[in-house]
């Protein structure tokens, strides 16, 4: 029935992704806006700084982390199983991709095309996830966190010591590029890693890679959303809310927990493979605890259990360092220029030279105060604490609150 958004005559309509025309239009506009980011410099009124290559790289990173975070969100947000082992599965995905997709050389590499190595990067971690799952499924809460923590360290050790696969500690290895081939032809059919002309528009390799990964992120979002709103997703949520009650209702706890591990690991594997390919050369130490914590930060800051929140979290957490960096750079420029209230206040916080006192240090190398990188860690930590205490639903919760304010208009309840 038109114009009656609350009248559902079927469960399909009740669970529809885009129930109203307004939502359809809004989402289409948003997607078009995302696709057009690389050409923002020629579109009037668009924020043209985003179209610069360095910002495109940041956005591409957001997409990659979003895919991984969607996976962790299914395991932690939906099924309620805290996992610190996400980095391990990402590494596994990355090295699967490398072994299959990287050109033949001193290290293992079969030079197979992307349509083989990318799905394999999902399947192998998923299988391993299901294999190690049974040990993890037996424990819950804090104990599960410790078990998965162990996984990260085992993984790191393995990666460091399987040198013919990973290149070994400190050396690392290269990963397959974003090129599309049918089989092992010389010239790739579509090459995302070289600049070129598409539909009469000259695009840099960053722009092409951005568009490719935007596509992957959209597909991953659709899959995550569909898992969430179907039987499997409901089973996960039942287990999260109360595992015993879920079992009483007929949800096979063991099976669904394994499934959650499997799905989550598949997302992680793809994300890891994409990340490694995007960066190009990566050392085994890349897949460490810090990476896992970053994902935990994404889903907690974004809003555990919600797909939209996870995407918001990915944008926030990945873009934050860049914003902080730009901000401190802008501030130290101001301070160097001297006068003005901003310079005075900023000077207290920022150390611009070796003997200057400041909480944050913009100088290269070590100095008094925190580096920008350390500052980011502090901000993550603070944000996680603040969100857990004051806004458990994360950024999404804030959005919900804003939305409900207008939804309730002109009343409050």
């Amino acid at each position, binding site marked *: 029935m038109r*114009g*009656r958004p609350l009248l*559902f*005559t079927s469960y399909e309509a*009740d669970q529809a992704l885009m129930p109203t025309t307004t939502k359809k239009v809004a989402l289409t506009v948003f997607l078009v806006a995302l696709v057009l980011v690389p050409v923002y410099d020629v579109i009037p009124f668009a924020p043209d700084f985003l179209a610069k290559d360095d910002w495109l790289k940041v956005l591409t990173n957001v997409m990659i982390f979003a895919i991984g975070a969607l996976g962790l969100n299914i395991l932690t947000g939906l099924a309620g199983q805290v996992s610190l082992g996400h980095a391990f599965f990402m590494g596994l995905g990355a090295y699967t991709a490398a072994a299959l997709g990287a050109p033949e050389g001193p290290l293992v590499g079969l030079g197979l095309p992307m349509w083989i190595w990318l799905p394999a990067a999902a399947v192998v971690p998923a299988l391993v996830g299901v294999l190690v799952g049974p040990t993890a499924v037996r424990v819950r809460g804090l104990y599960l966190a410790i078990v998965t923590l162990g996984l990260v360290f085992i993984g790191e050790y393995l990666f460091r010591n399987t040198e013919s696969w990973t290149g070994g500690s400190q050396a690392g290895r290269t990963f397959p590029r974003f090129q599309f081939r049918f089989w092992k032809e010389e010239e790739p059919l579509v090459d995302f890693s070289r600049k070129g002309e598409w539909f009469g528009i000259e695009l840099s390799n960053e722009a092409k890679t951005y568009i490719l990964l935007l596509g992957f992120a959209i597909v991953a979002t659709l899959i995550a959303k569909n898992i969430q709103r179907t039987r499997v997703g409901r089973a996960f949520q039942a287990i999260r809310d109360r595992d015993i009650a879920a079992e009483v209702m007929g949800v096979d706890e063991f099976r669904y927990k394994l499934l959650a591990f499997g799905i989550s690991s598949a997302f992680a594997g793809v994300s890891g493979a994409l990340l490694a390919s995007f960066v190009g050369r990566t050392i085994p130490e890349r897949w460490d605890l810090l990476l896992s914590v970053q994902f935990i930060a994404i889903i907690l800051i974004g809003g555990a259990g919600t797909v939209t929140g996870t995407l918001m979290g990915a944008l926030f957490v990945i873009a934050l360092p860049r914003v902080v960096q730009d901000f401190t750079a802008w501030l130290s420029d101001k301070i160097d220029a001297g006068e003005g209230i901003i310079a005075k206040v900023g000077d207290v916080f920022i150390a611009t030279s070796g003997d200057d006192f400041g909480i944050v240090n913009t100088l290269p190398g070590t100095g008094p105060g925190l580096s920008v990188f350390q500052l980011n860690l502090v901000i993550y930590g603070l944000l996680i604490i603040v969100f857990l205490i004051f806004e458990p639903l994360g950024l999404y919760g804030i959005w919900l609150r804003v939305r409900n304010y207008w939804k309730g*208009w*002109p*009343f*409050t309840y």
Partner: protein
Amino acid sequence: MTSVVERRETPGVGEGYPTVASHIRDWAQKLPDHVALREKDYGIWQEITWKEYWETVLDAAHGLLALGIEPGDRVSIHSEDRPEWVILDVATVAVRGITVGLYPTNPAAEVQYLLSDSGAKVHLAEDQEQADKVMEVIDSLPNLEKIIHVEPRGFREYRNDPRFIFWDDFLELGREHRKAHPGAVEQRMAEATADDVMTLVYTSGTTGPPKGAMLTNANAKYAMDLVINVEGRLPGDKKPSPDDQILTYLPLCHVAERIFSTWTNAAAGPVLNFAESIETVQQNLREIQPTLFFAVPRIWEKIHATIIIKGRDATFFKRLWFALGLKMAGFIGRERVANGGLHTWKSRIVYAIGYLFIFRALRERIGLRRCRWAGTGAAAIAPEVIQFFHGLGINLYELYGMTENSAVATVNFYGRMKLGTVGEPYPGIGLRLDPETGEIQTKHPGVFKGYWNKPDKTAEAFTEDGWLKTGDVGVWVDGTHVKIVDRIKHIIITSGGKNISPSEIENSLKTSPYVKEAMVIGDGRKYLTALIGIEFDVVGDWATRRGIPYTTYRDLSEKPEVIELIQGVIDETNKKFSRVEQIKKFRMIPKELDHEDGELTATQKLKRKAMEEMFGDLIEDMYGSDR
């Protein structure tokens, strides 16, 4: 026959008199795949098309034939509103039986009275609760042969009782009968006559036991032609159509809901949406956003109170907007009421601005955003309430009628409304005021056949020249519109000899969100007094905000602060009335009034006699020192 439906060429059997059943059959022919009914079940609105509706009716009708229902036999229905209610109702009419509806709140004693008075042969008890009621009194119901139950749960105890049959089994029985005797129901329908009694509608019985008013097929046809399809009732004279949505939530055994749901659906085809229960009406309203909405004053008062209270509870910024919105609504309401219910150019501009900022959202929240016509009737309503809704842009019209004349009497036509009146008589009907008493009397083909098995009561209901005595006192306003003064037997004559209508004062009191029940007393006394029942939720909320602790309804009612609050309401009302109509004293009713305790009728009307007996000491207390 309505103008909308074209009659099909019927093969074989001849056409009977048009009944509710034949209308449904015609819709099933014309719009087989269009939605006819919707019921919320397992969280979503399940749809029933006209074809499915009619097929189920046919199965049920054959089921009734299999149970041996002969023309004129009574089938009683004791259930909340649900598709099975109307299906069995229509099936009964199809086999020329007589439907008797019971209120879900009827206690066992009343069930016993209604079933034995009507002599029902087949009874539908919705669930275990209603089945228990009938089983309590089954021994005094010799005519009752079969009890159909719709809910399977809780019937283990009656599993081996051959008198019980589950709804699905009943339909299966019908299907078998249909296979064995194809066309038997159609045969019955072809034999239908104008004079067939189709339903007994029991009057609510504010005095004495309920009486079953016999309504015939001709009565129903007349009500459909006038109440539903009369020219000029709806905006733009766009008659009800299959595009319209109706929310069915008032008891279907009441003539008002029967006309505005079942009969409107049959005559003009709007979709009936069955509310889950009376408690979820506000939620269901928001979901359905009906285009045609009929409600009794109690519901309008409740929506009005909800809006005011939620607006007051809103956060600061919203509260400012809300206050502004109310100001605009007040202006629009005044303009429209002065203009026969139509917008003036001034009110239209204010409304257009207000619509953007508040009215659209507000109407969406209360579920009346798409409402093109709203009606109120069945009891008196305070004019302020109607004006308030006009201010929000909702076309709310008061109309008047009663069971005995198939609700055909007066209506406020679109654009010709006069506030405080019940409107103009329908075109072509006989309606007059008794020159002596001012009683409204009607004469037209919608007037009922008589009371079931009560010829003496039937005789009392008519004047010597055959006009129906409605029992309501009215006056003409501007020679065209009728204003109801009160029920003839409610009119208070004070010891000073003044005639006073208590309803008007009571309704004015009830416009306050704090007052749920009000009963004005003073017949044969020196001055007027009142019994007041508070709206527990609202006053409770009010008390909590002021930090007044309370426990029960009675405790809250008797708080000095609450009495002071009500005194304020009384003072406010007294300002509107002349000196003799002032309420000098009042007392709080110490309990929530209830149908099962006998203070209210099934339609939530006060039983004045019962009230006077029950709270006699309170009343005497108010007059004590002066006697």
